[in-house]
């Protein structure tokens, strides 16, 4: 009998809400997040007309939060896919082939772990300049070290297993063994770390945009909305509360989902994990 | 606790002990209706396969059962007093001082971050009210008494710097530090190398005999118990199915499970294997068909007089 997995369910529901908000944004609001600015309605508190109030340009905060989910999720998911691909290919190949390649990957992973990913992303943004593509590259290149470590250690333990050796005796190519024998056996932990990684990427995007180095105004990134809201927090606190709440709910959703998945896939692993 | 003890009175007496998990519809018992007694200075063996309830019986004696396990029925009389009636504080004073315990895994039973000397010295600080300096000196003596070479240096060693046999000696030193009346040894040699097992057992026997300490030795290995204990109880599926003098048990086992156990014991002077005349009996094949066992015993009328097989109790099925 499995215990009810609160983390999994709560996390699932929260992420689902955010995904629905992002996908169906045009149906959930009649306004445009960028162009429907009306100074007549600037800094209005939350009301029946503007659920989350309006910002300094009279744009509907609710609409902007909804469309902001699109940016956050895109950045979070795409950058995490890039990370996973990098981490998996490096980790699996390093452990499978060993030798100098393993040493190189190991060294690189250690270096990556030493540089805080936000700082690394900041450096890349400094070179590429602000914008969505740079963000995807910056966040996609900087957070693969844990995936790589997990892939590497799983491969090391799987490599000695009979069926993997059997596959190589049968003349399977290395790539095919990695793809068909090794990869499917680490899906669980990789899924967990990737889910947590999406949350981390959403946070990083918000932070970079808040610093003015990510998505630039007027596009509705939650982080960038907070930069604007900071100036008028005394007059219009709602403009600061709701975008932040959206980040919080999204990241919380992915974190709970990741924790829940971990419990679901491996109930015994629970205690040691930080 | 300090009442004069009659010479013939048992040191420890279990009466109809049940251990189980309390539930809404009564307790689900894992150990059922276990009764036996140990005289002062006596060595009593408890044998049975893993999961038969030996360790739970032992842990219930010193009230260290892990939640949600609980003693659901029965009495645990130590020198005539029921241990279950003691306050937590009184029970703590009893543990280690009067009733000591050795566990199976000497690897993990010692704290890896503390020197063995300190872990022995704790006993004197806890029960004899000594300061650390004095307790430290006593620890050296305690270590010497279990025949650890160079005890003055070894007290400063950490558990990982010792072999399994040495660690188990440290555990024995801890357990016997305060001259307890009863030593519970739960599979004390199972995790050790075969060559070391015998030494450790002999050490326990020798030290306990010298101090008049009673021993409750728990093992799945009848050979171990035969060497050390005057009397033995056989546990099977949470019940004590047979309790006899060791000699009698070997000469005339009554319960089919005991017969199986004995049959699985290789003996000197007998040739085993296909070429030999006698084959080792595979216990698995005997107890595999647990249902047969249950039917054979549970549904017969309880009449120990008419059927001596039943005197030792019933084999109960517990999952």
């Amino acid at each position, binding site marked *: 009998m499995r215990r009810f997995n609160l983390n999994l369910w709560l996390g699932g529901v929260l992420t689902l809400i955010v995904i629905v908000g992002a996908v169906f944004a045009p149906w959930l609001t009649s306004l445009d997040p960028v162009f429907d600015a009306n100074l007549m309605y600037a800094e209005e508190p939350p009301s029946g007309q503007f659920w989350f109030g309006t910002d300094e340009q009279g744009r509907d905060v609710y609409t902007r939060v909804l469309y902001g989910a699109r940016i956050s999720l895109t950045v979070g998911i795409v950058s995490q896919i890039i990370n996973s691909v990098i981490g998996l290919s490096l980790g699996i190949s390093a452990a499978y082939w060993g030798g100098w390649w393993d040493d190189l990957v190991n060294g690189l992973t250690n*270096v990556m772990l030493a*540089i805080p990913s936000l*700082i690394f992303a900041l450096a890349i943004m400094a*070179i590429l300049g602000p914008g969505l593509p740079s963000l995807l590259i910056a966040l996609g290149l900087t957070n693969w070290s844990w995936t790589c470590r997990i892939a590497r250690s799983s491969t090391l333990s799987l490599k000695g297993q009979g069926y993997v050796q059997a596959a190589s005796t049968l003349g399977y190519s290395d790539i095919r063994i990695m793809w068909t024998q090794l990869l499917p056996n680490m899906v669980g932990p990789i899924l967990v770390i990737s889910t947590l990684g999406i949350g981390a990427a959403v946070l990083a995007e918000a932070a970079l945009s808040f610093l003015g*180095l990510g998505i630039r105004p007027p596009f509705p990134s939650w982080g960038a909305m907070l930069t604007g809201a900071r100036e008028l927090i005394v007059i219009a606190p709602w403009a600061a509360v709701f975008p932040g709440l959206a980040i919080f709910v999204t990241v*919380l959703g992915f974190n709970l989902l990741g924790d829940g998945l971990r419990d679901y896939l491996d109930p015994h692993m629970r*205690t040691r994990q*930080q | 606790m300090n009442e004069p003890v009659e010479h013939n009175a048992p040191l420890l007496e279990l009466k109809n002990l049940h251990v189980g998990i309390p539930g809404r519809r009564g307790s689900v018992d894992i150990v059922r209706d276990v009764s036996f007694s140990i005289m002062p200075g006596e060595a009593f063996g408890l044998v049975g396969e893993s999961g038969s309830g030996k360790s739970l019986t032992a842990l219930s004696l010193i009230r260290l059962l892990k939640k949600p396990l609980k003693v659901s029925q029965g009495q645990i009389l130590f020198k005539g007093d029921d241990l279950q009636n003691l306050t937590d504080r009184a029970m703590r004073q009893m543990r280690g001082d009067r009733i000591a315990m050795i566990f199976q895994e000497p690897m993990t039973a*010692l704290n890896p971050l503390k020197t063995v000397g300190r872990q022995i010295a704790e006993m004197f600080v*806890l029960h004899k009210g000594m300061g650390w300096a004095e307790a430290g000196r006593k620890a050296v003596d305690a270590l010497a008494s279990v025949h650890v070479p160079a005890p003055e240096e070894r007290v400063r060693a950490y558990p990982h710097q010792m072999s399994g046999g040495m660690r188990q000696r440290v555990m024995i030193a801890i357990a016997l530090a305060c001259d307890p009346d009863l030593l519970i040894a739960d599979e004390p040699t199972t995790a050790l190398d075969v060559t070391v097992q015998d030494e450790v057992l002999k050490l326990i026997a020798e030290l306990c005999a010298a101090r008049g300490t009673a021993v409750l030795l728990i093992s799945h290995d009848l050979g171990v118990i035969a060497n050390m204990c005057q009397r033995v109880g056989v546990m099977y599926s949470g019940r004590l199915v047979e309790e006899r003098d060791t000699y009698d048990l070997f000469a005339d086992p009554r319960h089919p499970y005991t017969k199986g156990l004995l049959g699985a014991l290789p003996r000197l002077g007998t040739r085993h294997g296909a070429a030999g005349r006698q084959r080792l009996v595979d216990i698995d094949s005997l107890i595999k068909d647990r249902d047969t066992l249950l039917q054979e015993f549970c549904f017969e009328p309880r009449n120990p007089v008419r059927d001596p097989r039943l005197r030792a109790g019933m084999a109960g099925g517990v999952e």
Partner: protein
Amino acid sequence: MLRFTIRRLLQVIPTIIAVVLLIFVIFSVVPGSFASSLMSDGRGGADADMVARINEQFGLDDPVHVRFFDYVTGLLQFDMGESFRFRQPVTEVIGDRIWASLKLSIAAMVFAIVVGVPLGFIAALKPGSILDSITMIGAVSGLSMPQFWLGLLLMYFFALILGWLPSFGYGGGDFKYLILPAITLGVTPLALLARTTRAGVLEITNEDFIRTAHSKGMSNSRVIRWHLTRNVMVLVVTTIGLQFGSMMGQAVVIEKLFSWPGIGTLLVDSVAIRDIPVVQGTILVIVLWFLFINTFVDIIYAAIDPRIKQT
């Protein structure tokens, strides 16, 4: 112990070299120098002539390997080049601000340890209790919250509404100015520490030697003091080290939010105007700090865990 320390210190050197190389490569091999970005931004109004002059002055026209060699020899003499913006050596620019950053990191870490560790401990001693649930919900929330948003709300509430604390700035080192940024920065490590401590206590409680301790007749409080605490601390120290080490990196956003004059603010401002020598220098300092703390923690770890020295 001394040998272990020396060996551990030597082990970091390759990582440091790799980090230096990586930072250099990122900023030097990629197209777009400081001068050309000035031109394309149109801000500086720099013409081709000026670009050439800047390039020459900073040696930007030299081949890559020459520049790397110059960079490394410079580093070895504590020379990180000269800031484009301040016209001052980078080491001086960073040196002026590093103390503010250190102060903030230490204050945040102290806050996180003092609150997080006891909280995790108490939560684990009564698993499933209300306090335990609240702690764990709080911890996962703390990990999911954007710190700068929390900082913004704290600033709004305690500074602007209640007026108890200054909203931002350094205040010449006045303690009052430190409180809000330190709490904001400390929330994530606090949550993580509470979680690690709780998991550690639960793990150790189930160890055999705790059962041994009980069988010796120890009271619960003695078991905790004599056998649990130190073993849990061994597990927690690693988390403390990792968090403290990466704190300067995490502080970047918080420093900017509270206009704290540390190297985080310096980094963000320098990135914005592409003051590359300063960006390189700051990142290097942040990474070196991380490596330094981690090595230090490893050494401490060896001191409190006798099992380590052997290997």
